[in-house]
Protein backbone atom coordinates (compact mmCIF):
# COMPACT_ATOMS: atom_id res chain seq x y z
CA UNK A 1 0.00 0.00 0.00
CA UNK A 2 2.25 2.81 1.18
CA UNK A 3 5.35 0.60 1.54
CA UNK A 4 8.55 2.23 0.41
CA UNK A 5 10.60 0.26 -2.12
CA UNK A 6 14.21 1.14 -2.87
CA UNK A 7 15.13 1.94 -6.49
CA UNK A 8 18.57 2.63 -7.97
CA UNK A 9 19.21 5.58 -10.29
CA UNK A 10 20.42 4.40 -13.73
CA UNK A 11 21.17 7.85 -15.13
CA UNK A 12 20.61 11.55 -14.57
CA UNK A 13 19.98 13.83 -17.54
CA UNK A 14 20.17 17.63 -17.49
CA UNK A 15 17.05 18.94 -19.23
CA UNK A 16 17.85 22.62 -18.61
CA UNK A 17 19.99 24.40 -15.98
CA UNK A 18 16.98 24.05 -13.60
CA UNK A 19 15.55 20.70 -14.63
CA UNK A 20 16.84 17.14 -14.45
CA UNK A 21 15.41 13.77 -15.37
CA UNK A 22 16.23 10.82 -13.09
CA UNK A 23 15.90 7.33 -14.56
CA UNK A 24 15.21 4.60 -11.98
CA UNK A 25 15.67 0.86 -12.55
CA UNK A 26 12.54 -1.19 -12.01
CA UNK A 27 9.03 -2.01 -13.20
CA UNK A 28 6.76 0.57 -11.56
CA UNK A 29 3.51 -0.31 -13.35
CA UNK A 30 2.15 3.25 -13.28
CA UNK A 31 -0.48 4.77 -15.55
CA UNK A 32 0.16 8.16 -17.17
CA UNK A 33 -0.74 10.97 -14.75
CA UNK A 34 -0.05 8.97 -11.60
CA UNK A 35 2.68 10.04 -9.17
CA UNK A 36 5.18 8.55 -6.73
CA UNK A 37 6.53 9.77 -3.39
CA UNK A 38 10.33 10.04 -3.55
CA UNK A 39 12.16 9.76 -0.22
CA UNK A 40 15.72 10.83 0.50
CA UNK A 41 16.46 9.72 4.09
CA UNK A 42 17.34 12.61 6.38
CA UNK A 43 15.97 15.18 3.92
CA UNK A 44 12.27 14.80 3.08
CA UNK A 45 9.82 12.98 0.81
CA UNK A 46 7.89 14.69 -2.02
CA UNK A 47 5.40 13.78 -4.76
CA UNK A 48 6.50 13.66 -8.43
CA UNK A 49 4.69 12.67 -11.61
CA UNK A 50 6.13 9.89 -13.77
CA UNK A 51 7.58 11.43 -16.95
CA UNK A 52 8.43 8.20 -18.84
CA UNK A 53 7.99 4.49 -18.22
CA UNK A 54 9.12 1.27 -19.87
CA UNK A 55 8.92 -2.34 -18.63
CA UNK A 56 12.16 -2.04 -16.69
CA UNK A 57 12.69 1.65 -15.94
CA UNK A 58 10.88 4.89 -15.19
CA UNK A 59 11.71 8.59 -15.13
CA UNK A 60 10.99 11.38 -12.72
CA UNK A 61 11.63 14.89 -14.11
CA UNK A 62 12.28 17.55 -11.52
CA UNK A 63 12.47 21.35 -11.38
CA UNK A 64 14.87 22.57 -8.68
CA UNK A 65 12.77 24.56 -6.25
CA UNK A 66 13.44 23.95 -2.52
CA UNK A 67 15.48 21.99 -0.02
CA UNK A 68 14.38 18.58 -1.26
CA UNK A 69 14.95 19.15 -4.98
CA UNK A 70 18.35 20.73 -4.21
CA UNK A 71 19.31 17.51 -2.38
CA UNK A 72 17.91 15.42 -5.24
CA UNK A 73 20.00 17.37 -7.78
CA UNK A 74 23.14 16.11 -5.98
CA UNK A 75 22.21 12.46 -6.64
CA UNK A 76 24.05 10.52 -9.34
CA UNK A 77 23.77 7.22 -11.21
CA UNK A 78 24.11 4.37 -8.69
CA UNK A 79 22.48 6.30 -5.81
CA UNK A 80 19.23 5.01 -4.34
CA UNK A 81 15.89 6.59 -3.40
CA UNK A 82 12.95 5.21 -1.44
CA UNK A 83 9.88 5.28 -3.64
CA UNK A 84 6.26 4.54 -2.81
CA UNK A 85 3.36 4.45 -5.23
CA UNK A 86 2.19 4.81 -7.92
CA UNK A 87 -0.69 6.78 -6.44
CA UNK A 88 -3.71 8.69 -7.70
CA UNK A 89 -5.84 8.90 -10.81
CA UNK A 90 -4.53 8.81 -14.38
CA UNK A 91 -5.34 10.44 -17.73
CA UNK A 92 -8.03 8.75 -19.87
CA UNK A 93 -6.30 7.21 -22.87
CA UNK A 94 -7.93 7.18 -26.31
CA UNK A 95 -7.00 5.32 -29.52
CA UNK A 96 -6.64 6.50 -33.14
CA UNK A 97 -7.90 10.00 -32.34
CA UNK A 98 -6.76 13.61 -32.60
CA UNK A 99 -5.83 14.98 -29.18
CA UNK A 100 -4.05 18.05 -27.79
CA UNK A 101 -1.65 18.35 -24.86
CA UNK A 102 -0.93 21.68 -23.12
CA UNK A 103 2.07 21.74 -20.79
CA UNK A 104 3.44 24.61 -18.73
CA UNK A 105 7.01 24.46 -17.41
CA UNK A 106 7.67 21.34 -15.33
CA UNK A 107 3.99 20.45 -15.86
CA UNK A 108 5.29 18.75 -19.01
CA UNK A 109 6.71 15.96 -16.79
CA UNK A 110 3.59 13.73 -16.45
CA UNK A 111 2.52 14.74 -19.97
CA UNK A 112 5.72 13.17 -21.36
CA UNK A 113 4.58 9.71 -20.25
CA UNK A 114 1.07 10.47 -21.51
CA UNK A 115 2.29 11.57 -24.98
CA UNK A 116 4.30 8.32 -25.33
CA UNK A 117 1.20 6.24 -24.56
CA UNK A 118 -1.07 8.29 -26.84
CA UNK A 119 1.40 7.88 -29.70
CA UNK A 120 1.55 4.12 -29.04
CA UNK A 121 -2.25 4.22 -29.37
CA UNK A 122 -1.81 5.82 -32.82
CA UNK A 123 -3.27 9.14 -31.75
CA UNK A 124 -2.36 12.33 -33.60
CA UNK A 125 -0.99 14.42 -30.73
CA UNK A 126 -0.67 18.22 -30.97
CA UNK A 127 1.72 19.38 -28.26
CA UNK A 128 1.77 22.92 -26.86
CA UNK A 129 4.81 23.28 -24.61
CA UNK A 130 5.13 26.65 -22.90
CA UNK A 131 7.18 28.28 -20.17
CA UNK A 132 8.44 31.63 -18.98
CA UNK A 133 11.80 31.20 -20.68
CA UNK A 134 13.83 28.59 -22.59
CA UNK A 135 15.50 27.34 -19.38
CA UNK A 136 12.08 26.34 -18.06
CA UNK A 137 10.99 24.40 -21.14
CA UNK A 138 11.12 20.66 -20.52
CA UNK A 139 11.70 17.99 -23.23
CA UNK A 140 12.86 20.34 -26.02
CA UNK A 141 14.65 17.44 -27.73
CA UNK A 142 12.33 14.61 -26.68
CA UNK A 143 9.28 16.13 -28.36
CA UNK A 144 10.68 18.11 -31.29
CA UNK A 145 7.18 18.05 -32.81
CA UNK A 146 5.93 20.42 -30.05
CA UNK A 147 4.76 23.97 -30.64
CA UNK A 148 6.98 25.84 -28.21
CA UNK A 149 6.04 29.12 -26.53
CA UNK A 150 7.98 31.30 -24.12
CA UNK A 151 7.02 34.48 -22.33
CA UNK A 152 10.32 36.11 -23.30
CA UNK A 153 10.50 34.73 -26.88
CA UNK A 154 13.69 32.74 -26.14
CA UNK A 155 12.09 29.70 -27.79
CA UNK A 156 9.24 29.43 -30.29
CA UNK A 157 6.14 31.58 -30.21
CA UNK A 158 6.18 34.59 -27.85
CA UNK A 159 3.30 34.33 -25.40
CA UNK A 160 1.19 31.64 -23.77
CA UNK A 161 0.60 28.05 -24.84
CA UNK A 162 -3.08 28.72 -24.25
CA UNK A 163 -3.04 31.42 -26.99
CA UNK A 164 -2.04 28.73 -29.49
CA UNK A 165 -4.66 26.31 -28.20
CA UNK A 166 -7.36 28.97 -28.47
CA UNK A 167 -6.35 29.85 -32.03
CA UNK A 168 -6.14 26.27 -33.26
CA UNK A 169 -8.72 24.26 -31.32
CA UNK A 170 -11.58 24.92 -33.76
CA UNK A 171 -9.66 23.70 -36.78
CA UNK A 172 -7.89 20.94 -34.84
CA UNK A 173 -11.13 19.57 -33.38
CA UNK A 174 -9.47 17.22 -30.82
CA UNK A 175 -11.53 14.59 -28.96
CA UNK A 176 -9.65 15.42 -25.75
CA UNK A 177 -7.30 18.04 -24.33
CA UNK A 178 -4.86 17.13 -21.56
CA UNK A 179 -3.09 19.73 -19.45
CA UNK A 180 -0.62 20.10 -16.61
CA UNK A 181 1.08 23.26 -15.44
CA UNK A 182 0.38 26.39 -13.41
CA UNK A 183 -3.21 26.42 -12.14
CA UNK A 184 -3.98 29.74 -13.85
CA UNK A 185 -2.92 28.18 -17.16
CA UNK A 186 -5.07 25.08 -16.59
CA UNK A 187 -8.01 27.32 -15.71
CA UNK A 188 -7.68 29.03 -19.11
CA UNK A 189 -7.36 25.62 -20.84
CA UNK A 190 -10.61 24.53 -19.14
CA UNK A 191 -12.37 27.73 -20.26
CA UNK A 192 -11.24 27.28 -23.88
CA UNK A 193 -12.29 23.62 -23.87
CA UNK A 194 -15.69 24.40 -22.32
CA UNK A 195 -16.37 27.09 -24.94
CA UNK A 196 -15.46 24.63 -27.69
CA UNK A 197 -17.25 21.70 -26.03
CA UNK A 198 -14.10 19.57 -25.97
CA UNK A 199 -13.55 17.25 -22.97
CA UNK A 200 -10.46 18.12 -20.96
CA UNK A 201 -8.41 16.63 -18.13
CA UNK A 202 -5.99 18.53 -15.91
CA UNK A 203 -3.41 17.38 -13.35
CA UNK A 204 -3.70 19.25 -10.05
CA UNK A 205 -1.07 20.15 -7.50
CA UNK A 206 -1.94 20.48 -3.82
CA UNK A 207 0.32 20.19 -0.76
CA UNK A 208 0.61 16.50 0.07
CA UNK A 209 1.82 14.78 3.21
CA UNK A 210 0.97 11.08 3.03
CA UNK A 211 0.13 10.77 -0.70
CA UNK A 212 -2.33 7.90 -0.13
CA UNK A 213 -5.54 9.41 1.18
CA UNK A 214 -5.17 9.48 4.96
CA UNK A 215 -3.87 12.87 6.10
CA UNK A 216 -6.43 15.06 4.33
CA UNK A 217 -3.90 17.79 3.56
CA UNK A 218 -4.60 17.87 -0.21
CA UNK A 219 -8.42 18.06 -0.15
CA UNK A 220 -10.12 20.71 -2.28
CA UNK A 221 -13.14 22.79 -1.26
CA UNK A 222 -16.06 22.41 -1.15
CA UNK A 223 -16.23 18.71 -2.10
CA UNK A 224 -13.45 17.65 0.27
CA UNK A 225 -11.95 15.32 -2.34
CA UNK A 226 -8.27 14.38 -2.00
CA UNK A 227 -5.96 15.27 -4.87
CA UNK A 228 -3.72 12.28 -4.03
CA UNK A 229 -6.62 9.82 -4.38
CA UNK A 230 -9.56 11.35 -6.29
CA UNK A 231 -6.85 13.36 -8.15
CA UNK A 232 -4.34 14.48 -9.28
CA UNK A 233 -5.94 14.01 -12.72
CA UNK A 234 -9.47 15.41 -12.74
CA UNK A 235 -11.87 16.41 -15.48
CA UNK A 236 -12.58 19.98 -16.45
CA UNK A 237 -16.20 19.28 -15.40
CA UNK A 238 -15.04 18.45 -11.88
CA UNK A 239 -12.88 21.60 -11.61
CA UNK A 240 -16.09 23.61 -12.05
CA UNK A 241 -17.40 22.11 -8.80
CA UNK A 242 -14.19 22.96 -6.94
CA UNK A 243 -14.58 26.58 -5.84
CA UNK A 244 -10.93 26.79 -4.80
CA UNK A 245 -9.68 25.90 -8.32
CA UNK A 246 -7.75 28.90 -9.59
CA UNK A 247 -8.46 30.83 -6.37
CA UNK A 248 -6.51 29.43 -3.45
CA UNK A 249 -4.66 26.44 -2.02
CA UNK A 250 -3.60 25.35 1.46
CA UNK A 251 -0.03 25.48 2.77
CA UNK A 252 1.86 22.98 4.99
CA UNK A 253 -0.08 24.08 8.08
CA UNK A 254 -3.43 23.92 6.26
CA UNK A 255 -3.81 27.69 6.02
CA UNK A 256 -5.45 29.13 2.89
CA UNK A 257 -3.17 30.98 0.47
CA UNK A 258 -4.60 32.94 -2.48
CA UNK A 259 -3.08 32.53 -5.93
Amino acid at each position, binding site marked *: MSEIKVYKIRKVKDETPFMKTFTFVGDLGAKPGQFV*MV*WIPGVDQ*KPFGISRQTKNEFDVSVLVRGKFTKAMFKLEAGDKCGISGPFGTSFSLVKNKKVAVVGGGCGMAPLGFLIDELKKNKCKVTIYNGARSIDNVMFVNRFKDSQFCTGDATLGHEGYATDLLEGQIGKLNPVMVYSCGPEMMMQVVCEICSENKVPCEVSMERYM*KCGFGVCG*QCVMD*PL*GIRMCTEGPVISCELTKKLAEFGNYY*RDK*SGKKVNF
Partner: protein
Amino acid sequence: MTTVKFLNKQFNGPLVLASGVLGVNASSWGNVNKHGAGGITIKSCSLQPREGHPNPTMTGTKHYFINAVGLSNPGVEEVVKEVEVFRKTNKTPLIGSVFAGCVEDFGKCAKALAESAVDFIEIDISCPNVKHEFGEPYAFSPDATKKITAEVRKQVKKPIIIKLSADAPDIVAVGKAAEKAGADALCAINTMSGMAINAEMAAPVLSNVQGGVSGPAIKPMALKAVWDLYENVKIPIIGTGGVTYGVDAIEMLMAGASLVGVGSAVYFRKIDAFKLINEEIEDFMKKNNYKTIKSMIGAAHK
Protein backbone atom coordinates in the same frame (compact mmCIF):
# COMPACT_ATOMS: atom_id res chain seq x y z
CA MET B 1 -31.04 1.08 15.15
CA THR B 2 -27.48 2.42 15.45
CA THR B 3 -28.21 5.91 16.75
CA VAL B 4 -26.64 6.63 20.10
CA LYS B 5 -26.74 9.40 22.67
CA PHE B 6 -23.45 10.69 24.02
CA LEU B 7 -23.43 13.44 26.67
CA ASN B 8 -27.00 14.38 25.65
CA LYS B 9 -26.09 14.73 21.98
CA GLN B 10 -27.65 12.45 19.38
CA PHE B 11 -25.19 10.68 17.03
CA ASN B 12 -26.47 9.06 13.81
CA GLY B 13 -24.13 6.14 14.37
CA PRO B 14 -21.52 5.07 16.92
CA LEU B 15 -18.51 5.81 14.68
CA VAL B 16 -16.63 9.09 15.02
CA LEU B 17 -13.70 10.16 12.90
CA ALA B 18 -10.63 10.06 15.14
CA SER B 19 -8.53 13.19 15.37
CA GLY B 20 -5.70 13.63 12.87
CA VAL B 21 -7.13 11.69 9.94
CA LEU B 22 -8.70 13.57 6.99
CA GLY B 23 -9.30 16.37 9.40
CA VAL B 24 -7.81 19.52 7.98
CA ASN B 25 -10.88 21.44 6.89
CA ALA B 26 -14.65 21.70 6.70
CA SER B 27 -15.00 20.21 3.22
CA SER B 28 -13.10 17.11 4.33
CA TRP B 29 -15.28 16.70 7.46
CA GLY B 30 -18.35 16.92 5.23
CA ASN B 31 -16.94 14.28 2.91
CA VAL B 32 -16.16 11.93 5.82
CA ASN B 33 -19.66 12.49 7.21
CA LYS B 34 -21.13 11.68 3.79
CA HIS B 35 -19.17 8.43 3.91
CA GLY B 36 -20.80 7.35 7.17
CA ALA B 37 -19.12 8.93 10.21
CA GLY B 38 -21.70 9.78 12.91
CA GLY B 39 -19.42 12.44 14.37
CA ILE B 40 -16.22 14.22 13.47
CA THR B 41 -13.19 14.90 15.63
CA ILE B 42 -11.30 17.82 14.15
CA LYS B 43 -7.53 17.45 13.74
CA SER B 44 -5.95 18.95 16.89
CA CYS B 45 -5.20 22.65 16.71
CA SER B 46 -2.98 25.02 18.67
CA LEU B 47 -2.99 28.76 19.34
CA GLN B 48 -0.42 29.36 16.57
CA PRO B 49 -0.18 27.66 13.14
CA ARG B 50 2.29 24.75 12.87
CA GLU B 51 3.84 23.19 9.77
CA GLY B 52 4.55 19.83 11.40
CA HIS B 53 7.48 17.49 10.69
CA PRO B 54 9.08 16.92 7.27
CA ASN B 55 8.05 13.77 5.36
CA PRO B 56 7.78 10.83 5.60
CA THR B 57 5.10 11.52 8.19
CA MET B 58 3.01 8.38 7.65
CA THR B 59 3.52 4.81 6.56
CA GLY B 60 1.81 1.50 7.07
CA THR B 61 1.91 -2.27 6.65
CA LYS B 62 -0.82 -4.91 6.86
CA HIS B 63 -0.57 -4.91 10.63
CA TYR B 64 -0.07 -1.36 11.69
CA PHE B 65 -0.06 2.25 10.64
CA ILE B 66 2.42 4.76 12.05
CA ASN B 67 2.57 8.54 11.84
CA ALA B 68 4.51 11.52 13.07
CA VAL B 69 2.80 14.45 11.40
CA GLY B 70 3.93 16.73 14.22
CA LEU B 71 0.58 18.38 14.93
CA SER B 72 0.48 20.52 11.81
CA ASN B 73 -2.53 22.83 11.84
CA PRO B 74 -3.46 26.32 10.63
CA GLY B 75 -4.03 27.65 14.18
CA VAL B 76 -7.23 27.88 16.20
CA GLU B 77 -8.43 31.11 14.52
CA GLU B 78 -8.52 29.41 11.09
CA VAL B 79 -10.13 26.28 12.53
CA VAL B 80 -12.93 28.41 14.02
CA LYS B 81 -13.59 29.78 10.48
CA GLU B 82 -13.73 26.22 9.12
CA VAL B 83 -16.28 25.27 11.81
CA GLU B 84 -18.45 28.20 10.65
CA VAL B 85 -18.26 26.95 7.05
CA PHE B 86 -19.17 23.40 8.16
CA ARG B 87 -22.14 24.53 10.25
CA LYS B 88 -23.73 26.38 7.30
CA THR B 89 -24.70 23.03 5.80
CA ASN B 90 -24.13 20.31 8.39
CA LYS B 91 -25.45 19.60 11.92
CA THR B 92 -23.28 16.52 12.58
CA PRO B 93 -21.69 16.54 16.06
CA LEU B 94 -18.21 18.08 15.98
CA ILE B 95 -15.53 17.37 18.55
CA GLY B 96 -12.97 20.19 18.52
CA SER B 97 -9.53 18.98 19.56
CA VAL B 98 -6.83 21.19 21.06
CA PHE B 99 -3.28 20.80 22.28
CA ALA B 100 -0.75 23.17 23.80
CA GLY B 101 2.67 23.28 25.38
CA CYS B 102 1.59 24.55 28.81
CA VAL B 103 -1.43 24.47 31.12
CA GLU B 104 -2.39 28.10 30.46
CA ASP B 105 -2.33 27.69 26.66
CA PHE B 106 -4.57 24.60 26.88
CA GLY B 107 -7.13 26.85 28.57
CA LYS B 108 -6.72 29.67 26.02
CA CYS B 109 -6.90 27.41 22.97
CA ALA B 110 -9.88 25.43 24.33
CA LYS B 111 -11.71 28.67 25.13
CA ALA B 112 -11.10 30.04 21.62
CA LEU B 113 -12.34 26.86 19.96
CA ALA B 114 -15.31 26.47 22.33
CA GLU B 115 -16.61 29.85 21.13
CA SER B 116 -17.20 28.24 17.71
CA ALA B 117 -20.08 25.87 16.96
CA VAL B 118 -18.23 22.71 18.06
CA ASP B 119 -20.26 20.49 20.40
CA PHE B 120 -17.41 19.11 22.51
CA ILE B 121 -13.82 20.01 23.31
CA GLU B 122 -11.28 17.19 23.25
CA ILE B 123 -8.02 17.84 25.03
CA ASP B 124 -5.10 16.11 23.38
CA ILE B 125 -2.61 15.61 26.20
CA SER B 126 -1.27 12.41 24.72
CA CYS B 127 0.34 13.03 21.31
CA PRO B 128 3.50 10.91 21.31
CA ASN B 129 5.17 12.72 18.39
CA VAL B 130 6.34 16.06 19.74
CA LYS B 131 8.61 14.96 22.58
CA HIS B 132 11.51 17.19 21.45
CA GLU B 133 9.33 20.25 21.80
CA PHE B 134 7.00 19.45 24.66
CA GLY B 135 8.68 16.63 26.62
CA GLU B 136 6.79 13.59 27.92
CA PRO B 137 3.06 13.63 27.12
CA TYR B 138 1.04 15.16 30.00
CA ALA B 139 -1.16 12.07 29.80
CA PHE B 140 1.61 10.08 31.51
CA SER B 141 0.97 11.99 34.75
CA PRO B 142 -2.28 12.08 36.79
CA ASP B 143 -1.11 15.33 38.36
CA ALA B 144 -0.45 17.15 35.05
CA THR B 145 -3.75 15.80 33.68
CA LYS B 146 -5.60 17.12 36.70
CA LYS B 147 -4.08 20.61 36.27
CA ILE B 148 -4.86 20.84 32.54
CA THR B 149 -8.40 19.48 32.96
CA ALA B 150 -9.12 21.93 35.80
CA GLU B 151 -7.80 24.87 33.78
CA VAL B 152 -9.87 23.96 30.70
CA ARG B 153 -12.90 23.37 32.93
CA LYS B 154 -12.52 26.94 34.22
CA GLN B 155 -12.43 28.33 30.66
CA VAL B 156 -15.02 26.18 28.89
CA LYS B 157 -18.69 25.38 29.55
CA LYS B 158 -19.04 22.84 26.74
CA PRO B 159 -18.40 19.17 27.55
CA ILE B 160 -14.70 18.30 27.81
CA ILE B 161 -13.20 15.00 26.65
CA ILE B 162 -9.67 14.10 27.76
CA LYS B 163 -7.67 12.00 25.32
CA LEU B 164 -5.55 9.41 27.11
CA SER B 165 -2.47 7.35 26.29
CA ALA B 166 -1.93 3.62 26.82
CA ASP B 167 1.80 4.45 27.06
CA ALA B 168 1.02 5.94 30.50
CA PRO B 169 2.24 3.79 33.40
CA ASP B 170 -1.27 3.85 34.91
CA ILE B 171 -4.00 4.99 32.52
CA VAL B 172 -6.72 4.37 35.13
CA ALA B 173 -5.07 6.80 37.57
CA VAL B 174 -4.90 9.40 34.78
CA GLY B 175 -8.54 8.80 33.81
CA LYS B 176 -9.67 9.15 37.41
CA ALA B 177 -7.65 12.37 37.80
CA ALA B 178 -9.37 13.80 34.70
CA GLU B 179 -12.80 12.79 36.00
CA LYS B 180 -12.15 14.34 39.40
CA ALA B 181 -10.94 17.59 37.81
CA GLY B 182 -14.19 17.98 35.86
CA ALA B 183 -13.85 16.06 32.59
CA ASP B 184 -17.17 14.99 31.05
CA ALA B 185 -15.77 12.07 29.06
CA LEU B 186 -12.56 10.25 28.17
CA CYS B 187 -11.14 9.18 24.83
CA ALA B 188 -8.88 6.13 24.91
CA ILE B 189 -6.43 5.59 23.35
CA ASN B 190 -4.12 7.85 21.37
CA THR B 191 -1.52 6.20 19.11
CA MET B 192 1.28 4.34 20.91
CA SER B 193 4.95 5.20 20.67
CA GLY B 194 6.91 3.19 18.11
CA MET B 195 9.09 3.40 15.02
CA ALA B 196 9.69 1.91 11.57
CA ILE B 197 13.02 1.22 9.86
CA ASN B 198 13.64 0.69 6.16
CA ALA B 199 16.24 -2.10 6.05
CA GLU B 200 17.48 -1.43 2.51
CA MET B 201 18.07 2.24 3.28
CA ALA B 202 19.30 1.37 6.79
CA ALA B 203 17.33 4.36 8.06
CA PRO B 204 14.28 5.20 10.17
CA VAL B 205 11.29 5.80 7.87
CA LEU B 206 9.71 8.70 9.75
CA SER B 207 11.65 11.97 9.67
CA ASN B 208 10.83 12.28 13.38
CA VAL B 209 12.28 8.74 13.93
CA GLN B 210 9.64 8.02 16.57
CA GLY B 211 5.94 7.92 15.68
CA GLY B 212 2.51 6.93 16.94
CA VAL B 213 1.38 3.40 16.09
CA SER B 214 -2.28 2.78 15.25
CA GLY B 215 -4.27 0.16 13.36
CA PRO B 216 -4.90 -3.54 14.11
CA ALA B 217 -1.63 -3.88 16.09
CA ILE B 218 -2.90 -1.70 18.97
CA LYS B 219 -6.46 -3.01 19.29
CA PRO B 220 -5.73 -5.31 22.27
CA MET B 221 -4.13 -2.43 24.21
CA ALA B 222 -7.03 -0.11 23.36
CA LEU B 223 -9.59 -2.71 24.49
CA LYS B 224 -7.78 -3.23 27.79
CA ALA B 225 -7.55 0.52 28.42
CA VAL B 226 -11.28 1.02 27.74
CA TRP B 227 -12.13 -2.05 29.86
CA ASP B 228 -10.12 -0.82 32.84
CA LEU B 229 -11.42 2.74 32.58
CA TYR B 230 -15.03 1.52 32.35
CA GLU B 231 -14.59 -0.35 35.62
CA ASN B 232 -13.07 2.65 37.39
CA VAL B 233 -14.75 5.85 36.15
CA LYS B 234 -18.39 6.92 35.78
CA ILE B 235 -17.99 9.25 32.79
CA PRO B 236 -18.46 7.87 29.23
CA ILE B 237 -15.59 6.74 27.03
CA ILE B 238 -14.86 7.11 23.32
CA GLY B 239 -13.03 3.87 22.47
CA THR B 240 -10.38 4.34 19.79
CA GLY B 241 -7.54 2.15 18.59
CA GLY B 242 -7.35 -0.38 15.79
CA VAL B 243 -11.04 -0.44 14.93
CA THR B 244 -11.01 -1.67 11.32
CA TYR B 245 -14.01 -4.00 11.02
CA GLY B 246 -17.49 -4.05 12.51
CA VAL B 247 -16.54 -6.71 15.03
CA ASP B 248 -13.74 -4.47 16.34
CA ALA B 249 -16.28 -1.72 16.98
CA ILE B 250 -18.62 -4.19 18.72
CA GLU B 251 -15.77 -5.38 20.95
CA MET B 252 -14.91 -1.78 21.78
CA LEU B 253 -18.53 -1.07 22.78
CA MET B 254 -18.63 -4.26 24.86
CA ALA B 255 -15.41 -3.23 26.63
CA GLY B 256 -17.28 -0.10 27.71
CA ALA B 257 -17.03 2.52 24.97
CA SER B 258 -20.09 4.71 24.29
CA LEU B 259 -18.74 5.87 20.90
CA VAL B 260 -16.07 4.31 18.72
CA GLY B 261 -13.24 6.25 17.10
CA VAL B 262 -12.13 5.28 13.59
CA GLY B 263 -8.89 6.61 12.15
CA SER B 264 -6.39 4.42 10.37
CA ALA B 265 -9.17 2.18 9.04
CA VAL B 266 -9.27 4.86 6.33
CA TYR B 267 -5.84 3.50 5.34
CA PHE B 268 -6.79 -0.17 5.55
CA ARG B 269 -10.26 0.04 3.96
CA LYS B 270 -10.18 3.43 2.20
CA ILE B 271 -12.71 6.19 2.90
CA ASP B 272 -15.56 3.65 2.65
CA ALA B 273 -14.38 2.27 6.03
CA PHE B 274 -17.15 4.09 7.94
CA LYS B 275 -19.94 2.80 5.71
CA LEU B 276 -18.54 -0.74 5.73
CA ILE B 277 -18.05 -0.85 9.52
CA ASN B 278 -21.58 0.56 10.03
CA GLU B 279 -23.04 -2.18 7.83
CA GLU B 280 -21.06 -4.85 9.69
CA ILE B 281 -22.28 -3.51 13.04
CA GLU B 282 -25.90 -3.69 11.87
CA ASP B 283 -25.40 -7.24 10.57
CA PHE B 284 -23.95 -8.30 13.91
CA MET B 285 -26.81 -6.68 15.82
CA LYS B 286 -29.44 -8.42 13.69
CA LYS B 287 -27.76 -11.82 13.97
CA ASN B 288 -27.23 -11.51 17.72
CA ASN B 289 -30.50 -9.80 18.55
CA TYR B 290 -29.18 -6.51 19.87
CA LYS B 291 -31.77 -3.79 19.32
CA THR B 292 -29.70 -0.75 20.34
CA ILE B 293 -26.08 0.35 20.53
CA LYS B 294 -26.71 1.19 24.19
CA SER B 295 -27.48 -2.45 24.98
CA MET B 296 -23.98 -3.44 23.86
CA ILE B 297 -22.08 -0.79 25.85
CA GLY B 298 -20.12 -2.60 28.56
CA ALA B 299 -21.87 -5.89 27.70
CA ALA B 300 -18.69 -7.93 28.25
CA HIS B 301 -18.52 -6.86 31.91
CA LYS B 302 -20.53 -9.50 33.73
